[in-house]
């Protein structure tokens, strides 16, 4: 049992990863969180659901992780008083998640917590909550401007730089408010929520298969990880396991997604320190991988290739050969480029020491995923909670202590080479017989399942709740960007404004994935 508490009875999910669930009263929530925190565990996700029709309550869901696995704690909250103890003193990453759960469902933490809105701007009234089943979209519509109070820094010579929501590059929208003295950044405050497009509510009107398409579009650059996490949650509820070949193919797709994104980022990181050569070179490689994706799997970014029940893609002997050639080409080229990056004094001068997040701060704030590993946070779901087929792959985790841009670059290089090694392993294990995927048509009634996959950016979690008819009644998709956005505010402190694009890109967080 991952957590012991007299009032908590855990039952194990029928899941591809070690995961448990149990219910506890709001009064006991802090004790459980404290225990996980003391044991070195983390907060993965927090959301709420409207269970008034079936049980007459709202439910708060808190997913914690320690070395045993995932624990999903459900906390019933009465309709009259839908509140719970603030867990952000233990897990600061909870702050924005708690604020978002109020905006979306009207459940909130008690005293002490930050009660400002987060995902809501002015599109719907403050007293209406989109994820309540009785939400009336028409009546709740509002056109107010977003009256959000950003913190002002006072003092001699302090001025503000307001950036966004429409940014100067080809990037997603968000607002950044810098308080600076000269070029030095004193404080950065993020205001996100601009690309909130109602994804969670949308899930409730879709069937299982359409839902898989939507899951693949929560954050386009992480489409494989989301589709897999969604499928894993559905398969957990249905208590089925895809064929072995389908699982191998999923891992192949996930590693290819990691390769794509790391190649793209390494190019951009070169570009952000004025080495346009790096951008050109890495994007040539990325384009070649995307073209192979289109040839082999019918989509440059591998969208819609994973569905509940299995996969929709095939790979024959000639396809395997193409991937083997691609791996050899990438290994050769990236080795040359890594040498150039490492030997380039100007590049290293900009990378080293920039945007530093000390391991201690990273642990305190819950920095996760690839950026976390660059700050000594040794978590990788492929290693600790290896679902099939990762249990047969022995993934080597890349971790560094420096926590600066340079460390995040090295982690990317290491992970890229590791992914190439894994892809070759996977090809060896892909047996030739094509067992047809049995697509999962529907789900059992009153189900609850979670899936978690280590995407290229970090752990992606999808939770599915079904109603009495087995329909999707609540789907929550959690992006690692929730944890990492607040840490970016710390990483920039005392750096100069012109280094912000570089630091920002070294994290490369998702706006769409957190705004939903």
């Amino acid at each position, binding site marked *: 049992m991952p957590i012991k508490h007299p009032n908590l009875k855990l039952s194990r999910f029928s899941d591809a990863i070690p995961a448990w669930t149990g219910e506890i009263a709001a009064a006991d929530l802090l004790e459980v969180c404290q225990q996980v925190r003391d044991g070195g565990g983390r907060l993965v996700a927090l959301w709420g659901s409207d269970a008034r029709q079936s049980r007459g309550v709202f439910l708060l869901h808190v997913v914690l992780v320690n070395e045993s696995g995932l624990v999903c704690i459900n906390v019933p909250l009465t309709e009259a008083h839908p509140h719970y103890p603030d867990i952000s003193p233990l897990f600061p990453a909870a702050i924005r998640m708690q604020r978002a759960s109020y905006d979306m469902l009207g459940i909130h933490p008690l005293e002490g917590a930050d009660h400002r809105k987060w995902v809501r701007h*002015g599109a719907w009234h403050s007293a209406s909550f989109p994820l309540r089943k009785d939400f009336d*979209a028409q009546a*709740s519509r509002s056109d107010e401007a977003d009256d959000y109070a950003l913190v002002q820094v006072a003092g001699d010579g302090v001025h503000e730089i307001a950036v966004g929501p429409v940014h100067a590059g*080809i990037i997603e929208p968000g607002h950044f408010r810098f308080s600076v003295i000269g070029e030095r950044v004193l404080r950065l405050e993020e205001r996100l929520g*601009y690309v909130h497009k109602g994804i969670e509510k949308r899930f409730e009107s879709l069937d299982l298969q359409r839902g898989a398409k939507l899951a693949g579009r929560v954050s386009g650059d992480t489409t494989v990880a989301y589709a897999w996490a969604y499928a894993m949650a559905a398969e957990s509820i249905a208590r089925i396991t895809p064929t072995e070949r389908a699982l191998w193919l999923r891992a192949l797709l996930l590693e290819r997604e990691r390769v794509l994104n790391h190649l*793209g980022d390494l190019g951009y990181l070169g570009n952000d320190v004025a080495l346009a050569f790096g951008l050109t070179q890495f994007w040539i490689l990325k*384009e070649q991988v995307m073209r192979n994706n289109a040839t082999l799997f019918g989509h440059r970014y591998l969208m819609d290739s994973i569905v509940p029940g299995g996969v929709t893609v095939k790979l024959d002997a000639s396809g395997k050969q193409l991937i083997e050639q691609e791996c050899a080409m990438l290994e050769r080229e990236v080795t040359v480029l890594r040498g150039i990056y490492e030997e380039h004094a100007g590049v290293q001068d900009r990378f080293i020491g920039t945007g530093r997040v000390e391991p201690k701060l990273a642990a305190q704030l819950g920095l996760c995923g690839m950026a976390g590993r660059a700050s000594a946070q040794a978590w990788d779901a492929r290693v600790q909670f290896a679902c099939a087929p990762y249990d047969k792959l022995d993934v080597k985790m890349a971790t560094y202590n420096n926590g600066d841009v340079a460390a995040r670059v090295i982690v990317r290089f290491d992970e890229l080479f590791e992914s190439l090694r894994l892809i070759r392993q996977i090809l060896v294990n892909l047996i030739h017989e094509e067992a047809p995927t049995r697509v999962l048509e529907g789900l059992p009634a009153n189900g609850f399942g979670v899936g978690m996959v280590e995407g290229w950016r970090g752990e992606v979690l999808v939770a599915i709740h079904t109603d009495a008819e087995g329909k999707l009644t609540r789907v929550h998709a959690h992006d690692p960007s929730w944890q990492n956005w607040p840490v970016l505010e710390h990483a920039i402190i005392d750096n100069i404004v012109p280094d912000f694009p570089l630091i920002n890109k070294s994290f490369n967080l998702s706006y*769409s994935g957190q705004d939903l």
Partner: protein
Amino acid sequence: MYPILKQIWKTGIKTEAYPQADEAMRLTTQRLQQEILDVFGGALAIRMVDAGSCNGCELEIHAVNNAYYNIEGLGIRFVASPRHADLLLVTGPVSRHMEVALKRTYDATPEPKLVVAIGECACDGGIFGESYASCGKISNVIPVDVVVSGCPPTPTAILQGILTAISAGHVAQK
């Protein structure tokens, strides 16, 4: 320096032939005169606006800049401000929270201007549709000249869309 030069020499020129304009992508008849189009065609400045996409379309717009598609080879470049732009490249759906920002960006772009909507969601709302948080397609919020569908559209299709917007075709499709 030597390894960089060697790598550049080894890589060679990757740029491929540019695609042609495709009139099927046009939403309204060309509003601009040939003289203006000639000027645009020589040096078009694009401001890209993500009005609520999943970031898939942004990846392909990035790819348009890579060595294979080499959009800058056509004299087309992406600029940092709508005030410098001749054409807006907009991805969507338009989230309610981006509605005002998109309108303001459009207003800040000097006339004459063109708008190209990129991607399934920008064309018809896509899988996100219209809801309490989404206005759906781009043309629900600002006037659109050309639409490029696809989820996400390929870099070639995006290039075609841009070229269609600045070509002189007079056939209205819809």
